[in-house]
């Protein structure tokens, strides 16, 4: 079975992003290809910013997501509308809005909600973390 994860909880106000990571680790231990993709929506998109610097004695959530994405080839999508309004800007969007900087972290990509619909359509189960 392949899963799509929909994460909507803020990385700062909830444990949604943390719990989803643990779910993925448990899942791929038994079924390495079980995760089709992860779609971050709402405040969860904040996890894809390259700017925050967590205290050294706490989990670096961004790094944890980047590691798991690279290691297991899991695509990480941020809803473009939710991300841009929260200041998570890719190089391309930065040019479009004529900004001097961009903030999207590596291994994350901005996509529309249509990508989530496609994921819903092509996986057996979608699990929301909020």
């Amino acid at each position, binding site marked *: 079975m392949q899963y799509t994860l*929909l994460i*909507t909880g803020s990385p700062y106000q909830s444990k949604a992003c943390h719990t989803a990571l643990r779910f993925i680790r448990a899942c791929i231990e038994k079924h390495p290809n079980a995760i089709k993709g992860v779609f971050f*929506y*709402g*405040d969860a998109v904040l996890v894809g910013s390259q700017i925050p610097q967590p205290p050294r004695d706490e989990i670096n959530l961004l790094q944890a997501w980047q590691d798991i994405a690279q290691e297991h080839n899991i695509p990480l999508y941020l809803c473009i*509308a*939710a991300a841009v309004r929260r200041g998570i800007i890719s190089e391309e969007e930065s040019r479009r809005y004529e900004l001097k900087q961009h903030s999207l972290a590596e291994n994350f990509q901005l996509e*529309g*909600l*249509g990508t*989530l*619909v496609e994921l*819903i*359509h092509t996986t057996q*189960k*979608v699990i*929301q973390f*909020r």
Partner: protein
Amino acid sequence: MKHTLIHLNSSPYANLSCKEGLDLALVLATFEQPVDLCLSGSALALLNNNQLPTAEHGKNLHKLLDGLEFYDIENIYIKSPSSVGESQHWQGTKPLNEAEWHALFSQYQQVFRF
């Protein structure tokens, strides 16, 4: 084709959850995916007529309700009796009794909460 229920439970003016839940419903419907809505808790405030939110409050999401039928979103459920006064709220909802409300959530392939 998966049938989706979007459960709105957040105040339309407290944060963006309610708006982003509605946005997802509209996109699913645009892609011709069957989607129903149900409202409970603070999200019931969305149904109140005569809302005049300022820019600081956020967008007037109540105005979206009349357009839902054009996206073929025709089932908007609330639990009856609701805390919203019948005469002052949007008339397009389908009230469900306690048992129907609880049965609702197992009728869908997926339920997303906002």
